[in-house]
């Protein structure tokens, strides 16, 4: 197994798709639908990387990221959003210590490749 991934996205079809895509890449993934759940998962389990949607019901992705950084300084967290490359969102994500940023508007193959590259960089150099 390459990585153990925590997927945080409120839309089941998106979670499922990521699950299937990662499986193909020889990764194991666990999915949850909200930030609160994600923080709970991180308390009880160890992950190699978190894939975190920015627009979430309740706690926003950015808040979740901030909370994760309180406890997990070096855990790779990659932000994902349907808003595409929004410079403000990218700047904020970087400020809160994300390890990468992916727009859902990219072609799927590119999303996976970028994701893997970000995780590799994060493992080597830490957060952005």
């Amino acid at each position, binding site marked *: 197994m390459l990585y153990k991934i925590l997927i945080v996205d409120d839309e089941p079809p*998106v979670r499922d798709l990521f699950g299937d895509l990662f499986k193909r890449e020889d990764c194991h993934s666990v999915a949850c639908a909200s930030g609160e759940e994600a923080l709970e998962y991180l308390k009880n389990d160890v992950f190699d990387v978190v894939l975190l949607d920015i627009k979430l019901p309740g706690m926003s992705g950015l808040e979740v990221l901030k909370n994760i950084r309180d406890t997990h300084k070096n855990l790779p967290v990659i932000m994902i959003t*349907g808003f595409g490359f929004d410079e403000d969102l990218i700047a904020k994500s970087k400020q809160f210590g994300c390890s990468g940023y992916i727009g859902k508007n990219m072609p*799927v193959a590119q999303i996976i490749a970028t994701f893997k590259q970000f995780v590799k960089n994060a493992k080597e150099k830490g957060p952005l």
Partner: protein
Amino acid sequence: MGIDIKEKLSNLIENTAVAVLYLDCNGNILFCNKKTEALVGLNRIDIISKNWLEVLFKGTSNIMTKEMFKAVMEDSKNYKRAKDFQCHILSTNGLERLISWSITPIFNKNNQTTEESALFGHDITEIKERETSVKNIDDSLKNIFSSIKEYALYVINLDGNITYFGMGSETMLGWSKRDIIFKHISTIHNIDGNVFNLSFILEQVRLFGKYETETEIINKNKEVIPVMLTVNQFLDSTGKLIGYIFIAKDMTERKKLEYQIFQAEKLAALGQLSAGMAHEINNPLFVISGRIEMLKAEKLSQKVKDNLALINSQTDRIRKLVDRILKFSRKSTPVLEAIDVNDVIELVLPLIHYNKLPASKIEIEKTFEKNMPLIKGDLHQLQEVFLNILINAYQSMPSGGLIKIITSNFKNLYAQIQIIDTGKGIPAHNLKDIFMPFFSTKSDGTGLGLSICHNIIENHNGSIELESQVNKGSTFTIKLPFI
């Protein structure tokens, strides 16, 4: 003549408000009256037997006036007739007074000249001043009226013929007074159109004395001008209706502004809507294309594979469109750095060929300003602008052509970049919408490219303009302020 009359005459001359001087054949003063003393500020003893020019022009350096006066005097003597002349003389308090002189040769009983003459001087300084100030008021009123350009004031008689055409009428309507006076009002007003019916307006004026409405008038070039029109009754001194007075205020600029504000509000609303919409589309779209990606790995019949490829390419099309919409709606603040626009263009040129372009022979000719001052700009955003315009230029020349890129220093204020193609051009009626979102002249365009360019340039406090002629080509002119 009795003694009584002589005395009365002498009193009359002495007390009149006109300066009276009697000169001998040499121009020496034989006698003068009280007014003369007052005017020149000398006592009679100092005036009598002096030369008249010396007395009147004492201390003035105005040789011209003095000589002219002398000439008029000679003239009067030679031709034996009275002559009038106006000149300034220096009065007691040192101020100049304007005097109107009458010079009269004196005849003897046999009607022969005696070589003597009389001078009557009337001080007209105050009269002249009043005249001048009235004339000044007249002049400034005229100036005020002719300076008013936003209002046209014109009058028609009861037959509907124009009898007065003043204020800004000539400027606003393009007609000269001479050409339009006595022409019928239908020359500038729609008489029986459904919307701006003048007959209806005049009916209202007859009923209520006055009518105000937004309407349109037509200028000499048959162009329509939106105006705020006030029509009043024109009454003679007995109160009889003799015509109508029109005052039209030009609303063109105001309408333009209103339209711009309306467009800006529309765009802002559209931007918000599309950002939200794009996000909602991106999620399902991602799932669809992801699932297609997964299916590609399965063992499938050729037919299914073909269908999948089609679904994939169509999904990709939507994805790209949504991408454009997001880019358009996003008010991203430019990340400003000092850059040379020439460099930006050099960076863009190699990128053109990564885009789907018609396989035609296109030459690029660059004329760059050598010492271009730097501008403050976002490199990526500006690259996108130039790339977009260059791609448009390529696409407008399917059978080949020339693209000229000219950069220059515009008045030391702006870096000016012109991109000129020899392509299909854009018809005039499409030009005004060319920067509007979702407006495209291409069958496969999203209509967002140029509106994104427009937004980016505007965020840089610059300007972008397009001139185009069908089948001749288009010229984009971009100006970006120097640091």
